[in-house]
């Protein structure tokens, strides 16, 4: 199974994690002709609490959407981080270093200033700057598992041409967080 990618977006209800997973998977599935699955685990919808979204991207048909060894895990809350910290090593964990500072650290645990970056972007683009797009960017910054052209197309399809620009900028900001 060459070119397989497995990504988790985790945090709490309301952060748009489902959308992050959907967008990323759709970009791969529809605009790059790959196979992709996206699944969710959530509690009482949209009322806080742990939530996550899992994405699997592959060149081949996907037997099972279950992630066996996720490549990247984005953890936007401390709770989410704690659930996944034991995966570090097998997976790269990206967390919001503005929101909490984990005991554990290391090569595979990457803190990124999600909150402050978002605040900065929000000043420029208002509430159209979303943390979930930033999170996708953070993953793409480590590895371009989906092309930027595909991302633009998926933004255009889902948010319209006008908003695609903004989203690409937010995405870019995310990419920069992890590339740097």
């Amino acid at each position: 199974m060459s070119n397989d990618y497995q990504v988790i977006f985790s945090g709490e209800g309301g952060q748009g994690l489902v959308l992050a997973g959907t967008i990323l998977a759709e970009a791969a599935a529809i605009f790059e002709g790959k196979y992709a699955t996206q699944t969710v685990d959530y509690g009482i919808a949209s009322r806080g609490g742990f939530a996550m979204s899992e994405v699997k991207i592959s060149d081949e048909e996907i037997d099972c959407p279950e992630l066996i060894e996720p490549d990247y895990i984005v953890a936007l809350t401390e709770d989410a981080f704690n659930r996944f910290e034991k995966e570090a090593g097998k997976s790269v964990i990206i967390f919001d270093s503005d929101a909490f500072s984990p005991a554990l650290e290391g090569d595979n645990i990457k803190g990124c200033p999600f909150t402050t970056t978002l605040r900065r972007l929000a000043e420029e683009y208002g509430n159209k700057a979303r943390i979930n797009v930033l999170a996708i960017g953070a993953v793409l910054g480590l590895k371009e598992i989906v092309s930027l052209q595909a991302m633009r197309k998926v933004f255009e399809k889902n948010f319209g041409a006008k908003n695609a620009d903004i989203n690409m900028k937010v995405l870019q900001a995310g990419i920069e967080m992890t590339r740097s």
Partner: protein
Amino acid sequence: MSSELIKFGQGNEACAEGAFKAGARFYAGYPITPSSEIAEIASRRLPQLGGIYLQMEDELGSMAAIIGASASGVKSFTATSGPGFSLMQENLGVAIIGEVPCVVIDVQRSGPSTGLATKPAQADIMQARWGTHGDHAIVVLYPSTVQECFDLTVEAFNIAEMLRSPVILLTDEVVGHMREKFIIRDQVKVIDRKKPTGPVEKYLPYQPDEDGIPPMAAFGDKYRMRITSSTHGPDGFTNSNPVNARQMIERLYKKIMDRADEITYIKEYMVDDADILIVACGYTARVAKAAVKQLRNEGIKAGLFHPLTIWPFPEKQLKKAALDAEKILVPEMNLGQLVYEVERILKEKEVFGLHKSNGQPLFVREIVDKVKEVAK
């Protein structure tokens, strides 16, 4: 020019699109997690297609309304989950005895009772077969991918129309909410119910043709239509004569059971030389497939028998697939349901269950481990 559409979406969305493609133009339902997306899509798309979305006061009414609409000639469906499915059981019986085609989608969640509304389970498998009171047979289909959600919903309508019978499309929270690429196929075979053709005065709403299925007039046709929930004669009037009652009840049963092969869909993976055969459906079948691959990599000859039609259970097909297997494993997201049926059918085999009922899906590792344990 093909107007096929490639979409990336949820199982629930694919079910709805499958229904529209099959010709469904009426939806009545009452929202419930994890099925509500089907209602939401129906409420948006049906009016675009000239159809009608009705949110009823409850699931009892929802089931009743789709029966009424279908009896009026409009293909109809509803979607729900466990608690609502329980409430639909009484009127499901009306569709069965009244021979009114319709499709009921049950997206299974973790129970019993309210349980965990957002978590998956496969614990309505037996309820789908036996949930309503009294003697009956029923067709239950169970997709495992988003594409199958589309395809089997179309098929569910076709079977319903062909057999004048309700069909249950069982899915689970994982299948309903997962997103994958799927094709809204353009060229699907769509079956419509048989209409009466003879003289108006001679029409008997429950007089079967040779195939056991009575042609069905719609309310408003020149043929006078009678639908009844009582045991009835060919004319649709209550009839308690034991000979008639037996004929009626048995015909309803046989029109389905005698056609089991025709409506049976299964998938097999590496069964031919399997020492241990896994029998799994719905999302669990996908986990099982991944497990089979991994086991084969490790040199263990596992195979997968994956029924898409779970009721009538594909007895013959399973027997054939299991011919050379020594052991059988039935993993389910419940405390044991399908496993009873498999045990019953495969009398000579050692049948093991792998049961998980905690709001989580089964994991590949769990099946792999269990196969190894059992294989010993």
